[in-house]
């Protein structure tokens, strides 16, 4: 059963309808095969892009869908219910557009954003390095000014869409200052010197390519720097606030998908003369799964609404990412349990869902890092405020 949703507008409801149609007819039939063959489904992103699903949370004047996060995240969730690699891709694409949309000059936005949001192009976001994941300020990739260009050298690890993307939002060091020595660049894929290493061989999410991007004397015009020199880490981290909401929604959708499979199976499989869902011990497992999915959704959408109202949401985004991804891990693990031995085989999708859930606890800030972000806000002044919205 798909999730029950309330949406703020009729067009948002129609958008969810459209997403469900695309998910069930275009995505679901291909997911299992592409995942087992570890094939990146570039054409699926074209289908989504042409339907307008790759620019939803960005302004209409630059070709976006002008949708609030409350709506955009529910679209992501619907995609993730059938294919989380694709939902992660949509979220990472939005993440890679964020720097330009939020920090670019008007001229830069007019020049590049419409193409980036138009659906034909796919983006990637390069922050992590082999030795600098949780601590991105330890990065070493350098951008050295040379006339009206920067010359970039180094390696960005774990790049989702690495080798397939059309543009790369790359953070690189422009000075030695640990946090204020990093700048953000928007680099077209065909720039000489930018190459992808062979993809990582992962435990799950195998339909999503992850690769190290090597930068060797990559010359980037100065006008492709987003924001001020030294503003890069701030841009990267504020991108991640929104990106984490995306991952929370993806994890929620993934868990919903696992729950749906488990409930369907539990109605059909019989032991001791009745369907296993009629054994209370098993029904309660399913009930806990449903409660976990619903609380993930509620937490994620609550954070989204803060963002939509222009209120601070960093800590809430971390809470959502933590709760939704931990819940997804639990729910997908239990889904395997519900299917018993069959759940442990590759003939059913739940073991794949379980492998996919694991990475959600790791990327866009591990769940330890989310706890770090949350705990830091606990002692901050200004808590307990009451804000009126919607008047």
């Amino acid at each position, binding site marked *: 059963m798909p999730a029950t949703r309330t949406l703020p507008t009729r067009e948002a409801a*129609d958008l969810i309808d459209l997403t469900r149609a*695309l998910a069930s007819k275009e995505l679901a039939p291909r997911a299992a095969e592409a995942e087992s063959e570890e094939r990146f489904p570039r054409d699926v992103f074209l289908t989504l892009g042409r339907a307008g699903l790759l620019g939803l949370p960005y302004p209409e004047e630059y070709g976006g869908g002008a949708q609030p996060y409350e709506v955009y995240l529910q679209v992501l969730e619907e995609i993730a219910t059938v294919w989380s690699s694709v939902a992660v891709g949509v979220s990472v694409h939005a993440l890679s557009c964020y720097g330009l949309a939020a920090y670019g000059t008007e001229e830069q936005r007019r020049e590049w954003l419409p193409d980036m949001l138009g659906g034909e192009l796919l983006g990637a976001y390069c922050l992590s390095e082999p030795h600098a994941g949780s601590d991105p300020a330890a990065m070493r990739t350098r951008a050295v000014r040379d006339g009206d260009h920067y010359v970039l050298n180094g390696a960005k690890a774990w790049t989702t869409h690495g080798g397939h993307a059309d543009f790369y939002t790359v953070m690189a060091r422009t000075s030695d200052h640990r946090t204020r020595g990093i700048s953000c660049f928007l680099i077209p894929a065909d720039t000489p010197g930018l190459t992808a290493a062979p993809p990582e061989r992962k435990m799950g999410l195998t339909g999503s390519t992850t690769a190290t991007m090597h930068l060797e004397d990559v010359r980037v015009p100065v006008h492709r720097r987003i924001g001020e020199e030294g503003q890069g880490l701030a841009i990267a981290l504020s991108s991640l606030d929104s990106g984490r909401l995306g991952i929370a929604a993806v994890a929620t959708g993934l868990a919903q998908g696992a729950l749906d499979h488990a409930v369907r199976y539990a109605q059909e499989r019989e032991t001791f003369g009745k369907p296993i869902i009629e054994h209370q011990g098993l029904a309660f497992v399913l009930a806990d799964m449903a409660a976990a999915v619903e609380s993930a959704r509620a937490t994620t959408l609550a954070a989204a609404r803060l963002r939509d109202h222009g209120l601070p949401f960093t800590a809430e985004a971390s809470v959502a990412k933590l709760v939704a991804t931990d819940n997804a891990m639990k729910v997908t693990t239990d889904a395997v349990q519900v299917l018993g031995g069959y759940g442990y085989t590759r003939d059913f999708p739940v073991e794949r869902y379980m492998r996919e859930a694991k990475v959600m606890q790791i990327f866009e800030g591990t769940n330890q890092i989310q706890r770090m972000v949350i705990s830091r806000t606990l002692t901050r002044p200004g808590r307990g405020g009451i804000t009126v919205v919607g008047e």
Partner: protein
Amino acid sequence: MNIVVCVKQVPDTATERKLRPDDKTLDRDAVDGVVNELDEYAVEEALRLKEAHGGEVTVLTMGPAKATETIRKALAMGADKAVHLSDDALHGSDALSTSYAMAQALKKIGFDLVILGSESTDARTGVLAAMLAERLGAPQLTLARKVEVNGSAIAIERITDYGYDKVEATLPAVVSVVEKINEPRYPSFKGIMAAKKKPVEALGIADASVDASAVGLAAAYSEVAEFAAAPPRAAGTIVKDEGDGGVKAADFLASKKFI
């Protein structure tokens, strides 16, 4: 070219469909309404003809208020405007009176070409195209798997049991389509947003010059006398192949009079 596509809202075939116990008509409130599947092909064909020859695509729906959902979907796909024929007096109309009311609306809208699905998934009479053509005095080109328009000439490939017939006529005409004709497009989110601004004209029966005594349950020539829930599907028969599987399967088919 002025094209009108007839689009019907039907209950989702994936859900359990019910008749109302009181007047034995379809309970349209009980289930989600969706666009009759073949009508998406009709809309797609209309849009392709418009893209090739220019003109305008108007959606015509006869149905209760809820049918606006269906209109929005067709507009989001790219139709230009819509006419919603809706009136309590139309409730319970049979195929004859439906065709009368829709023909009246079509005369008011004006058309060079009317495109329908060849059959709905709820009533499945498959007669509407023929009835409309008769009432409009226009040639009927039904069961089309291909449509070609050249000036005022129209030609279709009409599917048959053995292949296809080529049928030609002069516009204005009525065409019904089968699912082989095309692959309907998905609406895009831009289309969904644009649909909000497209005109939807609401017509009551008086606006369409429909005589109230000729439509609705009371005027219907056919009547649903009785109905019962479909029996649950019986468990299948499993034939184990012990060298004679083919014979057993054939015997089974023969027992059901399939062969």
